[in-house]
């Protein structure tokens, strides 16, 4: 299981090391990997049916409860088979489809990693790990959608899908962490074990909502559905894969995975089923009036996702059984239909209904394949889709309470879906050809045809012999979603009951609607115009302009804060520091106490006076030399203050440093222009006010600080041991060269580096 994941990673990188001859067939190479993985999972079916749950774990960060842990039960096995099985077909198809594009290797790399991430997600047992794979699929699908990055639309659509799904992903993470506090773990098994506690916790509703936000964004539910039609900008193999077995199904996967933990409450039921109902109807409603193949299919995907979510929301054993069956139904027909759409696009050079028609004669095989799949989509026997639809109706009919609303909307949606499916066949293959475009021929040996053909045949086969699927996979999958689920028996023929009559009504009404739409052109036109008007308030555009607005806001804000004027940055810092300190004084109500006022020797008073005079001089002098000399006077004055208080070493150092600094200043000054009055009077007064405010508060701080007694233990240690251990009487000296010698070494290194820098900068002729 884990090995298969690693294989995806190795193979995806491996394509760059293939020998030249094989490089043309990279996609086939990956397809074989998919076949291999698919067969591995097939061989696990007997184990799973016997009720085994395979698991594997790798310790990663045990302290954070982050372990790579994988689980293979009936449910994840179903997904794994879909991902690898349909994946294999998609890669075979891509081999033929992508032949003429540049950058195929990059494409195959992303698509392979994408399947790997998807597989990793469905096998995850640790929810944080599941989240990581979840986000990986978002990022990789962004890279796939933006494959034709020269097109602005593709870039926009890709960003839109990334924004929405990544936003949902973050919300999902928040939900997982929130609910993870209840069992104190992110392991799915432990969540299930403490499901009662989670459901009764007050965190349940916020956690559920956060997780649902992740689900509805990923699975393109209303009101986040709009990224999915945009994602058709991707190359067709991607659409085929994303829409059928992967990406958008991730939301449904998570719902079903967490159903044992979060399901069964009325919040779950009402929120999820209402989102599902709206999405289901809206998707197919907009699909009816579309005329472009891929866009029709994208909207029917929204419809199908709505159905899946709705069924999870209805939350009965029957509805979940229906959902699991419908998962297979939809994956099989949607992958096929997208592949066919891509094939027709290749051969006929268009995806528009208006330039198609009459292809049944020249492309008979394509016609058959498309019809089988479209009939499956419409839910017409003997296709698998019929079984799916029957089961869905059954689930809805058996519902108490609000069921009638759901049932009515469901039937209406299905009538529309029948119309969409039949129109799809009719407009491509049967209607009389009206364009003068060259009539395409089909190429029977191409993977473009073989891949969808195999999937269509599977649709038919499972429809005719539903036991292959029902008794095995769906039964064990159902077992992992609900406890103690019974047997699953699927039959094509149920007898004359109310479900049958509903189906019959749906199909007949669908036929009639198709007939009306394709004969009364005016009706269709008006309908299209009406829908266009709704779509004009498109959420997609609103979303994009919102994003632009946000970026613009951030830009403006940055220009205000990051103005690039050095002194205003300093001013901000100083003003804030001064205000903070003033506030601290005010808030603490500190009393200023002056100990030991003492008398001032006249020479010290004189010294301070001279120094202050020099300070003012340095501030306002127009002469550079005067300013520098004044600066030197201040420095020597401070040295004398040090001396007065007996700090001899300090005084010496200060004098040496100050002398050196004055010399340096004079050296540099020679080459400098005279001082100019660069600021006007207003600015100077403002700066002076700030400076005085800062200086006053620092005076207060100084007075306060004299009361603080520093930790005496350290000083006492130095004083006591200075003579006995280091044989030095000058304690300051001993500290520097003995006790803290390493620090002094560091200081010397700093000085040496500064000296190096100075000498390099002053070198003549050196480049700046």
């Amino acid at each position, binding site marked *: 299981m884990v090995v298969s994941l690693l294989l995806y990673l190795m193979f995806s990188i491996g394509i760059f090391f293939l020998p030249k001859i094989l490089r043309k067939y990279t996609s086939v190479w990956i397809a074989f990997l998919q076949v291999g993985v698919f067969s591995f999972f097939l061989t696990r079916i007997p184990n799973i049916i016997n009720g085994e749950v395979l698991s594997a774990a790798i310790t990663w960060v045990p302290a954070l409860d982050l372990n790579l842990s994988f689980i293979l039960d009936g449910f994840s096995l179903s997904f794994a088979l879909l991902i690898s099985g349909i994946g294999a077909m998609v890669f075979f198809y891509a081999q033929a489809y992508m032949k003429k594009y540049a950058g195929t290797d990059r494409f195959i790399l992303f698509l392979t990693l994408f399947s790997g991430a998807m597989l990793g997600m469905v096998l995850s047992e640790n929810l944080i790990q599941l989240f990581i794979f979840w986000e990986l699929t978002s990022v990789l699908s962004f890279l796939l959608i933006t494959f034709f990055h020269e097109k602005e639309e593709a870039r926009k659509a890709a960003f839109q899908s990334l924004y929405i799904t990544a936003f949902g992903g973050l919300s999902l993470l928040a939900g997982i962490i929130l609910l993870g506090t209840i069992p104190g773990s992110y392991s799915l098994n432990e969540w299930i074990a403490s499901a009662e506690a989670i459901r009764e916790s007050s965190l349940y509703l916020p956690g559920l909502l956060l997780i649902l936000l992740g689900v509805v964004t990923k699975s393109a539910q209303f009101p986040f559905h709009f990224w999915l039609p945009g994602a058709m900008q991707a190359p067709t193999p991607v659409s085929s894969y994303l829409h059928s077995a992967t990406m958008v199904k991730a939301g449904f996967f998570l719902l079903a995975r967490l159903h044992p933990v979060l399901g069964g409450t009325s919040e779950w039921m009402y929120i999820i089923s209402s989102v599902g109902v709206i999405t289901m109807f809206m998707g197919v409603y907009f699909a009816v009036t579309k005329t472009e193949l891929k866009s029709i299919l994208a909207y029917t995907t929204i419809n199908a996702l709505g159905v899946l979510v709705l069924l999870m929301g209805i939350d009965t054993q029957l509805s979940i059984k229906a959902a699991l069956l419908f998962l297979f139904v939809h994956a099989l027909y949607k992958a096929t239909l997208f592949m066919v759409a891509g094939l027709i696009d290749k051969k006929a050079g268009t995806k528009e209904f208006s330039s198609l028609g009459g292809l049944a004669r020249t492309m008979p095989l394509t016609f058959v394949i498309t019809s089988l799949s479209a009939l499956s989509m419409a839910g017409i026997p003997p296709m698998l889709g019929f079984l799916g639809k029957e089961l869905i109706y059954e689930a809805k009919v058996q519902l108490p309470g609000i069921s009638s609303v759901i049932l009515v909307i469901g039937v209406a949606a299905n009538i529309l879906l029948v119309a969409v499916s039949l129109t799809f066949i009719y407009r491509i293959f049967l209607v009389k050809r009206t364009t003068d475009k060259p009539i395409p021929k089909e190429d029977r040996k191409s993977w473009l045809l073989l891949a969808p053909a195999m999937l269509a045949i599977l649709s038919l086969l499972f429809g005719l012999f539903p036991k292959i699927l029902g008794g095995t996979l769906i039964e064990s999958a159902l077992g992992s979603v609900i406890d103690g689920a019974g047997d699953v028996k699927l039959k094509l023929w149920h007898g004359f009951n109310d479900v049958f009559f509903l189906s019959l009504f749906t199909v007949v009404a669908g036929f009639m609607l198709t007939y009306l739409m394709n004969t009364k052109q005016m009706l269709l036109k008006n309908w299209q115009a009406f829908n266009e008007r709704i779509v004009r308030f498109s959420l997609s555009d609103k979303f994009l302009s919102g994003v632009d607005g946000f970026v613009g806001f951030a830009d403006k804000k940055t220009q205000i804060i990051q103005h*690039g004027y050095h002194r205003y940055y300093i001013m901000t810092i100083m003003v804030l520091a001064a205000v903070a300190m003033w506030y601290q004084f005010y808030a603490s109500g500190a009393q200023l106490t002056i100990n030991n006022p003492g008398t001032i020797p006249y020479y010290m008073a004189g010294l301070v006076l001279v120094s202050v005079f020099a300070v003012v001089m340095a501030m306002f002098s127009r002469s550079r030399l005067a300013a520098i000399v004044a600066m030197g006077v201040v420095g020597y004055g401070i040295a004398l203050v040090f001396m007065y*208080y007996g700090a001899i070493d300090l005084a010496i150092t200060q004098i040496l440093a100050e002398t050196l600094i004055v010399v340096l200043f004079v050296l540099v000054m020679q080459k400098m222009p005279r001082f100019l009055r660069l600021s006007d009077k207003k600015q100077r007064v403002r700066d002076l006010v700030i400076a005085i405010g800062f200086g006053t508060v620092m005076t207060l701080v*100084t007075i306060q*600080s004299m009361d603080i007694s520093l930790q005496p233990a350290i000083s006492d240690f130095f004083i006591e041991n200075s*003579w006995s251990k280091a044989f030095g009487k000058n304690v300051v000296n001993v*500290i520097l060269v003995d006790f803290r010698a390493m620090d002094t070494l560091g200081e010397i290194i700093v000085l040496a580096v500064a000296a190096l820098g100075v000498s390099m900068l002053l070198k003549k002729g050196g480049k*700046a």
Partner: protein
Amino acid sequence: MEIIMAIFVGILYAAGVYLLLRRSILKFIIGILFFSNATNLLVFLSAGLIPGGAAFVGEKSANGTVLTDPLPQALVLTAVVIGLGVVAFTLALKYKYFEVSGTDDLDEMKQEKSETNLKEEK
């Protein structure tokens, strides 16, 4: 005496801030120096002042038996030396900058930058 020293520290800080807000780079560097001098004094004064009391073992300070706290002195000594390094390096940097740009105005540094950006974009 202490209050006089505290006011002196305040004046030094005020001068430092004022000079840091100048556009002339030379004045700016003097500002750095004043700022660091003021901070050195602040740390030094926080040790508690005893006139003439050197931190020598065996010596007695003028007014009694207490030895001046040696620790702040050691810290300030390090700071003085590092301050020298900082100022020397800043001065050299300014020297080079003037050689290249021919200006002593900090505000022009911003315009220079945006001009070079424009050139790069072109």
